[in-house]
């Protein structure tokens, strides 16, 4: 496989906001003292009057964003996933979700690939938390191209959106000239009928690599990118269940409540099928280089290949 350019989706987030700021004059960006890390500093530099630093106070930031949205502005409230979805959960639920306000939450540093900062900052629970809020759209882009497209789609969507971005540079495998992003529509990347590998975020590229390895062993894997975990593309998932009979989900998130759970919910109701979840197995992470942690926690193509083979053999 040819070497691809790598880029962290948090950078895509900051750059996309700065680009789209011209086109959407209603766009405002809020931070909680992390504009450098969330990369919204790029927007701040270009549009200083439309950037509001709320200080280290995520709860208030979400409420301020809600207030801005009531007046017709489109705020992107930015912080690390841990604080945006965790600390501020109840404000997101009650001040944004319940009144269905047009607030976008840009959550960076999601998952275990935060790396050295360790478990306190490695948020593996945000997708689970956010998808329980009625009316909340939850997006987890796989690469730079998708992340940028997701930011604009969120602006055009009327209602609250949670978008998850990563700190680690990941391969850019989508073609920016041809890629079409639509909220709620999954992307089938390869054809295959032996197994469906349904992945999200940085695990999508691992799934593509795994499918290539499996192909060499005569196993045809259907790779599906689910960038929008809520609303889930149930049709695509159920079709894959029916046509393959085995689903392996892959996500950089807890196996509780994330993509794997959403897929199980869909297939249980419409086409009961074996689903094997690859994710963080109900444990906290720890400090270390991101790439090493991903391997250690089985969030890699090797573990996908192994899991597929084990389950096909059963």
């Amino acid at each position: 496989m040819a070497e691809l350019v790598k880029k962290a989706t948090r950078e895509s987030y900051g750059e996309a906001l700065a680009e789209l700021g011209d086109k959407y004059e209603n766009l405002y960006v809020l931070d909680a003292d992390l504009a450098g890390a969330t990369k919204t500093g790029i927007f701040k530099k270009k549009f200083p009057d439309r950037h509001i630093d709320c200080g280290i106070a995520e709860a208030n930031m979400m409420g301020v964003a809600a207030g801005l949205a009531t007046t017709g502005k489109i705020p992107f409230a930015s912080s690390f996933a841990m604080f945006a979805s965790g600390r501020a959960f109840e404000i997101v639920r009650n001040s944004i979700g319940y009144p269905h306000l047009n607030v976008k939450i840009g959550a960076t540093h999601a998952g275990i690939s935060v790396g050295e900062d360790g478990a306190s900052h490695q948020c593996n629970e945000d997708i689970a938390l956010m998808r329980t809020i009625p009316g909340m759209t939850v997006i987890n882009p796989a690469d730079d191209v998708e992340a940028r497209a997701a930011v604009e789609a969120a602006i055009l969507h009327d209602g609250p959106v949670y978008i998850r971005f990563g700190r680690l540079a990941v391969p850019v495998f989508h073609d920016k000239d041809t890629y079409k992003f639509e909220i709620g529509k999954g992307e089938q990347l390869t054809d295959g009928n032996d197994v469906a590998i349904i992945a999200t975020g940085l695990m999508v590229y691992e799934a593509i690599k795994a499918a290539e390895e499996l192909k060499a062993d005569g196993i045809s894997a259907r790779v599906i990118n689910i960038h929008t975990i809520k609303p889930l593309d149930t049709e695509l998932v159920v079709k894959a269940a029916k046509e393959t009979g085995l689903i392996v989900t892959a996500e950089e998130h807890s196996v509780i409540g994330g993509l794997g759970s959403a897929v199980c919910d869909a297939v249980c109701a419409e086409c009961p099928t074996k689903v094997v979840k690859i994710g963080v197995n109900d444990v906290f992470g720890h400090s270390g280089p991101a790439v090493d942690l991903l391997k250690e926690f089985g969030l890699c193509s090797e573990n996908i290949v192994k899991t597929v083979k084990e389950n096909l053999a059963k």
Partner: protein
Amino acid sequence: MDELLKKQLQITACKVRMGIIEGVYNAKSGHPGGSLSIADTLTYLYFAKLNVYPNDPKYAERDRFVLSKGHTAPALYSVLAHRGFFPVEELKTLRHIGARLQGHPDMKHIPGVDMSTGSLGQGISAACGMALSAKLTSETYKVYAILGDGEIEEGQVWEAAMFAAHNKLDNLVAVVDNNGLQIDGKISDVCSPYPIDEKFKAFGWHVITMDAHDFDSIEKAFNEAETVVNQPVVIIQTSVKGKGVSFMENQVSWHGTAPNKEQYEQAMSELTAQLKELEG
């Protein structure tokens, strides 16, 4: 204050109190105590201060009001109904299945409600966002919010307090309803937020005090608030929880209890007598 206006406001406030009792009685639940303590302030705001438009509740340039102490929704609903946002008769549907009047303010369904609240400490942040929005795009509307004195035990209130002062939100007026009681008892016994004035001063706010049941005092306070520049304003109002209904006054047990039929009749008879006296 002009004597005629004062009399009108007193009469309206009395009717607003009757609407509160009517709502809570018919709901068989709700929060009468803290609703009655803010009845005069809300009446003043909606009948003498706010630029609001009952026929166009979402009018972009209207003043905003956020009831951060959202559990006292019966007071907000009653004042909105009397101001013409929806029929007074609808107050009897409070908390009923299928009703618009939810247990706590719901901006999606109730005309005139500018923010959904109920979880304490959150409304003031949204009010900050609205005030900031006006500053960002040079709009002239003002934002008012009422918080409970127990509510300010929430940490988010102080995040918002810091934010409002930092951003010089002089188009924001917060009222702290200091009736001295919260569910578990006196605020000074539960987890004292006193001194409230010194705390807000330290956070960079302009502090005003007023008597929550004296329209001269109320008018003076809100007029002073309008003269303040570069600072948000907090009005700390000394109020009586349960004000207007003798057996509810200063009784913590009436924080979140509905009157039974006998109590309802007594409350309404007391308020009717007050109204008759006012109407002379």
